[in-house]
């Protein structure tokens, strides 16, 4: 434990870490100090006055430096004449606190009576009722009846939309400023503020768009009353009817721990259904935050469009069949296909699904083709070597740390990591953002590098060259690294165009690199990941916590797919050698890649397991209805290689099955074993066959430990309604660099840029898109833009187009009508094309393009 101090609370002595907040220290010691405005993840303000305590300190003799003692030999305590707010106190040696005295109790009663003067008594219809800090503290404190005149009660608006996701009830607000401080301190979007003062104080926004941060839902968790509610859950259910089921968000590589609040629902055939998604505390992953995509992106699990029975193509029609018929049809085809089949795994299949898909593939061929989708990022071998150390916590990164985010629009691709990196920057961590264009993280960056798309690898490689020329090579570490000397020789003489950025990174004690895939070809991306590993291994920034490489994969479980033998290179090779039979697991390549649409159309037989009728499924001969993350158990491996369990939250839709079971059933018809009876047993098979996953048995993944801050539990006032983690913190598999006996490898990287003349299109990722699952959350549709292309201002002026105009984009031999955005974001010569804003593929990688003005 770090340095500690001894404090006395109500006569009992406790050792607590030096420098922490008194409310936190009391909480750690098992004493609750009630709070409304204080939140352990934000700076204290001392606004609500609920945390008043009697506070004293030991009197130190100025001459001797020893504590003064009274006649009995006890230290003399000097008490503050008035009660103090505990939340604004930092613990110090000898601090004495009394929280259980009548004086304190009276003060808290008075504060509560004051807070309640105009608070409405609408608990019976309030969403927060049942999990409300104010309700709970009113039961514990307060006079029971008010002396204020009811007729003087202030009446205010009860349904104020702060944007279209969050509603404000002005009467319920107790003006704790948690929401405004969250927006300001944590997120950095100052879109909520107080207006007026005194009794007229109100939360307002006049921002445009209004309350539209990607994290707005979190304010409803930390709101200590029912003033802020989500459009999703508002009047949806009562908290006490809900069962909390631990789960993992299926939308991005962060792997946020979530809690699915479920209940038996009339509107869902009396089965269990998800009513809302709440964050679940995991201080190694998402702390207590989730983004709005995770919070509001669960509706796909119960969407009416869900496929409920296996479908067989008969001519132009789909015929619903039973599972046996579907299995027999597929098994017969696979038997004949032999090596002529390709297996494509989507980015949110669970590890269990992937394992059974792989087993099925190996049953059809000795050298099966196992591809992932999407397939624009690779470099799992670099991650295996130099991946971020186990035990990494972004919230521990501060002034001694540096973070490089390269080739990623971080807030759009991994919002909660963005949030944590932004907060690290606030704490003094050096953040370098490198991309071909400005992104939102630039605001918080120490150094911003805007390279020309195509030069990403060269830029990262030059950082390693700078490490060499500035003697930042860690010789002790490189003794374990094969090829280090050759690489150093190769780096000699490399030009370093962004020397300040390089040195910002190299001067730090800890270094984490987040590598995305924006603007890179697959070959370049392999080199980018290697260049990242080179830099980290040469400088010894690997093999320990808060150091190493984190890939910003697209999707929740691409890491798992790579771990279990699937690869992006295999997918890329399918373009040249298309198989005659496709077996696609929950992927929708036809919505993203025009070339694959053709291959699918030409194929003899296509099997797709999916939850929805996607453009890819439309090419299928057999469609297998799959279960969503909500209806089954499984595990995802996040971008930091943490394997995390999700649990069954809702009843199954129709005849759907978990994909691992579907694949195992087909395998059984090809002579394989009977399917396992549970996902846990599939994972047991994985632990026995995949060395990295040896420790990932379900009981181990379910292990929890006490986390700080101790949010959740019954006292909701402390951290809000983020839930205690009861489902498991997950386990990270260690990178090779962490094993001191392991040899590591580096190699010089290929620096080739593009060979594209003139204007070229770069696909970019946006958070709110029309991907298969997220598209089903209709409430978010207003946040999904119409398909657009961002065009450089000069280029636009040259072609004669203005912001908002509809243009024609010619790319890869196809034409697309898109709305032009001319807003200074796109670099010269580049057209930024967001992916998946429609179901029509546009570009999948950097490609030459032309823009045409559409005649008047």
């Amino acid at each position, binding site marked *: 434990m770090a340095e500690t101090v001894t404090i006395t609370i109500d006569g009992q002595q406790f050792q607590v870490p030096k420098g922490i907040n008194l409310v936190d220290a009391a909480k750690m010691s098992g004493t609750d100090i009630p709070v409304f405005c204080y939140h352990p993840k934000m700076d204290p303000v001392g606004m609500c006055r609920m945390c008043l305590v009697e506070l004293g300190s030991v009197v130190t003799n100025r001459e001797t430096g020893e504590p003064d003692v009274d006649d009995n030999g006890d230290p003399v305590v000097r008490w503050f004449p008035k009660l103090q707010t505990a939340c604004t106190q930092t613990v110090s040696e000898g601090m004495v606190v009394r929280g259980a005295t009548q004086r304190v109790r009276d003060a808290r009663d008075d504060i509560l009576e004051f807070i309640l003067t105009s608070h409405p008594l609408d608990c019976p219809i309030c969403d927060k009722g049942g999990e409300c800090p104010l309700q709970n503290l009113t039961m514990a404190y307060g006079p029971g009846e008010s002396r204020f005149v009811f007729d003087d009660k202030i009446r205010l608006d009860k349904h104020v939309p702060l944007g279209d996701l969050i509603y404000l009830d002005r009467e319920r607000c107790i003006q704790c400023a948690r929401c405004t401080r969250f927006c300001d301190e944590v997120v950095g979007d100052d879109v909520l503020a107080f207006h007026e003062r005194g009794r007229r104080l109100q939360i307002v926004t*006049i921002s445009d768009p209004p309350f539209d941060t990607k994290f707005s839902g979190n304010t409803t968790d930390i709101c200590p009353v029912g003033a802020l509610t989500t459009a999703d859950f508002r009047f949806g259910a009562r908290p006490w009817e809900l069962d909390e089921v631990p789960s993992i968000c299926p939308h991005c590589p962060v792997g946020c721990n979530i809690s699915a609040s479920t209940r038996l629902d009339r509107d869902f055939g009396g089965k269990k259904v998800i009513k809302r998604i709440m964050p679940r505390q995991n201080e190694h992953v998402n702390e207590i935050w989730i983004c709005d995509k995770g919070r509001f992106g669960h509706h796909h699990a119960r969407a009416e469009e869900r496929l409920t029975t296996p479908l067989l193509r008969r001519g132009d029609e789909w015929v619903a069949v039973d599972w046996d018929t579907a299995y027999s049809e597929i098994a017969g085809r696979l038997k004949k296909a032999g090596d002529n089949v390709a297996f494509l795994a989507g980015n949110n299949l669970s590890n269990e699904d992937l394992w059974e898909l792989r087993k099925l593939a190996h049953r059809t061929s000795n050298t099966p083709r196992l591809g992932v989708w999407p397939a624009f990022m690779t470099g799992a071998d670099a991650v295996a070597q130099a991946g971020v150390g186990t035990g990494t916590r972004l919230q521990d990164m501060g002034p001694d740390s540096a973070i490089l985010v390269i080739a990623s629009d971080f807030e759009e691709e991994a919002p909660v990591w963005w949030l944590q990196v932004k907060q690290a920057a606030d704490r003094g961590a050096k953040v370098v953002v490198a991309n071909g264009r400005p992104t939102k993280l630039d605001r918080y960056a120490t150094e911003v590098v805007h390279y020309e798309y195509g030069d990403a690898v060269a830029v990262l490689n030059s950082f390693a060259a700078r490490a060499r020329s500035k003697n930042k090579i860690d010789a002790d570490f490189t003794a374990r690294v094969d090829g280090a000397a050759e690489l150093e020789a190769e780096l000699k003489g490399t030009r370093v165009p962004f020397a300040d950025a390089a040195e910002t990174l190299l001067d730090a004690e800890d270094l984490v690199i987040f590598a995305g895939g924006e603007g890179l070809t697959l070959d370049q991306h392999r080199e980018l990941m290697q260049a990242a590993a080179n830099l980290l291994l040469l400088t010894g920034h690997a093999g320990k916590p808060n150091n190493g490489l984190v890939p910003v994969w697209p999707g929740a479980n691409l890491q798992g797919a790579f771990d279990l033998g699937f690869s992006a290179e295999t997918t890329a090779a399918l373009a040249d050698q298309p198989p005659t039979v496709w077996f696609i697991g929950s992927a929708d390549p036809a919505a993203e890649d025009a070339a694959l649409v053709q291959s699918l159309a030409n194929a003899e037989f296509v099997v797709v397991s999916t939850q929805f009728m996607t453009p890819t499924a439309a090419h299928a001969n057999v469609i297998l209805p799959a279960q969503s993350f909500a209806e089954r158990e499984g595990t995802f491996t996040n971008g930091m290689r943490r394997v995390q369990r999700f649990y069954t939250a809702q009843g199954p839709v129709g005849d759907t099955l978990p994909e691992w079971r579907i694949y195992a059933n087909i395998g059984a018809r090809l002579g394989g074993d009977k399917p396992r009876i549970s996902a846990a047993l599939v994972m047991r098979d994985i632990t026995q066959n995949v060395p990295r996953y040896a420790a990932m048995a379900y009981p181990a993944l379910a292990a929890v430990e006490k986390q700080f801050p101790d949010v959740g539990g019954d006292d909701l006032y402390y951290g809000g309604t983020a839930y205690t983690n009861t489902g498991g913190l997950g386990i990270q598999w260690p990178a090779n660099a962490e094993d001191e006996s392991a040899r590591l490898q580096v190699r010089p990287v290929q620096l080739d840029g593009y060979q594209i003349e003139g204007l070229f299109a770069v696909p970019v990722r946006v958070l709110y898109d029309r991907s298969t699952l997220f598209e089903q959350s209709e409430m978010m549709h207003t946040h999904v833009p119409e398909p657009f292309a961002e065009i450089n201002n000069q280029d636009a002026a040259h072609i004669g187009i203005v912001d908002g105009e509809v243009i024609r984009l010619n790319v890869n031999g196809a034409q697309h009508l898109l709305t032009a955005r001319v807003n200074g974001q796109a670099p010269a010569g580049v057209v930024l094309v967001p992916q998946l804003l429609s179901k029509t593929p546009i570009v999948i990688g950097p490609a030459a393009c032309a823009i045409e003005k559409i005649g008047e």
Partner: protein
Amino acid sequence: MLAEKYADRIEKIFSKYPDKRSGIMDLLYLAQEEYGWLSEDTLREVAALCDVDPTQAHSIAGFYTMFSEKPKGTYWLQVCTDLPCALRGADQFYQELCAYLDVDDGGTTSDGLFTVEQVMCLAACDKAPMLQCNFHYYENLDMDIIKGLIEQWRAQAQQEAAE
């Protein structure tokens, strides 16, 4: 627009502070001087100049009683009715003033000449009842004195209108 009309003054304001957002109070005063009050559009204009979110400008304008987010009369009478002033009769004075001008709390007279409102402490408790008219202090008031002042201001306004 402020940016064009007062380019020099704005530059001078910003030069006083380490970052632009610190200049927001000065700019809000400037905007109020120019437009008479702070409309939502004005708040957006100032926020853009200071590089902050419009909501923050709105919040600041709402907190300080010296800023007005509503159109005001020619004479803006702000009476302090905080506790020490009230003990010296300021609240009763305020009510009588409202009655005399025939306006509600915070209202403007029908001729558009006077706006009256209550404000928080103006740091002149010992001379209450007191008010500030367009930021000038008038102290140790009673109804006779204020009636005289009001006649003066009316006459002044008429004279200005005649010119």
